[in-house]
């Protein structure tokens, strides 16, 4: 369960300070939520706050159970370290058996030989597979996924989905994505970000029709001048 207590935050994004949240109070119980808003480019900052990756300027976010990182984001899969070093690192900080994690990830991803190469040389699909595969290893109670859940018809997708489905029963999913059909498929309720506050809405279909996955081109200029492609398009940091 994630609790927000009086959270006020104004992160610096798209070249200026954006008012993200103003005195937000919310308890997020167990369930499957789709993160929706009329400003989808701010989802990244929201996910940072929800996962406690960045403390808000005022207030605090409390986690009652273990929460994952932002799965599906390129995030830490960059730089000169190899995949094996990263697996060791994650095993250490989450206190899980490193050998078993190595075996799990190597058996799951499509190209295990690539794990020994520096992460900066990996192709896109390898980074995504790594992020999802590694997320299965620690016993999280809340899964936060930012990006698309694997959907291409391949071995990795089938195996990962089979394992993840079992994992997700009775646990929480917070899902932020551009793919509306995936949002409708995997989530039950909507976690709506509107007017600097977060709320939970039970009618997901109505929310999906109200909040588009991408801001329409015509509206893009209203928030800020940034070409918009900044953070969310380039989640991969390119």
């Amino acid at each position, binding site marked *: 369960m994630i609790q927000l207590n009086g959270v006020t935050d104004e992160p610096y994004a798209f070249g200026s300070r954006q008012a993200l949240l103003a005195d937000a109070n919310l308890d997020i119980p167990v369930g499957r939520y789709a993160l929706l808003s009329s400003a989808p480019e701010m989802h990244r900052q929201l996910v940072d706050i929800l996962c406690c990756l960045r403390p808000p300027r005022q207030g605090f976010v409390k986690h009652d159970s273990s929460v994952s990182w932002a799965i599906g984001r390129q995030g830490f899969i960059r730089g000169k370290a190899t995949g094996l070093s990263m697996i*060791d690192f994650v095993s*250490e900080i989450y206190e899980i058996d490193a050998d078993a994690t190595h075996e799990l990830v190597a*058996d799951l991803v499509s190209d295990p030989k690539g794990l020994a190469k520096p992460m900066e040389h990996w192709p896109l699909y390898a980074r995504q597979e790594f992020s999802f595969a590694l997320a299965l290893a620690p*016993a999280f109670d809340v899964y936060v996924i930012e990006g698309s859940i694997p959907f291409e018809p391949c071995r990795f997708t089938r*195996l990962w989905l089979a394992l993840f489905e079992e994992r997700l029963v009775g646990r929480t999913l917070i899902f932020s994505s551009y793919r509306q059909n995936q949002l409708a*498929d995997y989530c039950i309720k909507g976690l709506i970000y509107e007017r600097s506050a977060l709320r939970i809405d039970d009618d997901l279909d109505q929310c999906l029709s109200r909040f588009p996955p991408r801001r329409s081109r015509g509206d893009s200029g209203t928030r800020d001048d940034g070409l918009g492609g900044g953070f969310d398009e380039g989640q991969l940091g390119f």
Partner: protein
Amino acid sequence: MSNEDRIKGWRSRRQAGNYTVGSGVAAWRLDPATLFEAKATPGVLLKPLLARLQGEPHDSVAARRAVYEAVQAELEAEIARSAVDENLADFSRRRLRVIVRLLEQDIRADVAVFAPGYLPAKLVAEDERLAAAHARRAERRKQDEAREARRHASRNDIALEIEVARDEEDDLAILRDRLRGLHEGHPPDMAGRFQPVGRTLMAMFIYQLHVMHGESRIALVWALVGPVVLLTLISSLYILMGMHFILGMDVQTFALLGATTWIMFRQIVFRSSTAYVSARGLLNFQADTPLMCTLAQSLIYGSVSLVVFAVLISAGHALGFVTLPISWPGSILFVVLMGCCAAAMGVLFGSIATFWPFFLRLAPIIERFLQIFAAVFFVSEQLPEHLRPWMLWSPFAHGMQLLRSAYFEAYQSTDASLGYFLTSLVFLMMVALIGERLARPNVQPM
């Protein structure tokens, strides 16, 4: 069909000689066995239609339409009797309509439709188009069913059964076991508790070492070159002036201590301040904070410097240039304390840089300024009395002189104050941590 037509037809059939009643019927009837097969060619509909058309009067449009309707009715009856899937029935109906349309066009264009081997010109292409549309519809239906199953599973919080290939089932079973093993070993009360800082710090230390190793194999060897260059510079300045001893300390060791400590200080400040601002990939873990990244970098460069010290002192001693310290613990303590000062400064600079990124360009200038006053090149006792306060404001000067006091037997600094040094260190740490606290909400993970 009127009675005269019927009698005429019967007479013409009888004239053929080997006529038995009802023998031509098979050619007219739609064959139920082949009609709804998956790969049925259009012939299954075309041949009966042609045979029937030939047998009945077909000179006028109305007569032909009667035949077409009769065949359609027969198709419907066949569908009802075989109880086929609605989609396949729809496909057959559309196929018949296409055949009728093309056939009628050809008849009106006076093509010889009753010649053996006749096939309407565009039939094959049209039929393939129909088949493709039919396949697309079937595919979409399958996807819709999958989506329904998926949503049902999500809404009721049950696990969806994913179809896996045969050889993947074994893999799946193995992976399930492994996952269960991993999660069992996990302490259940991990919830919300912060991971132990020391463990995370060590993990990050090892990770950063891997990164450095990945950057360049000779990076660590290069760490030796900087101090050697600076100490050579300082020593030669003194030796050129004819001084071989400074207040009882020999010039080479004096220079070595000054140079190596200051280079450690400089490296820690620069590396940790940039790490604070730019190690944003790793911030995607909750356990990881910018402060921890900074401390890990400081730890790395501090350790590297201790190694460099050890190498230079032992090599220098073997070559006869360098004297050994009288107190190893004391010397190492002060080196470590100088490292702590550097780490605090690094955190402070990093915090400032999150508000003003250009500040990191000013950092080398500030460092040079501090170097002049940090007892690297000379100690305060060498200066005339009225100039000493100009140097003694800097806590780093105190630190360096205390280091030399601990190292050399002959030199006991009268100006350096341990109290001042430690107080400044604590004050610097406090300021750094306050700055870090203010800057932390601005550091966003990559």
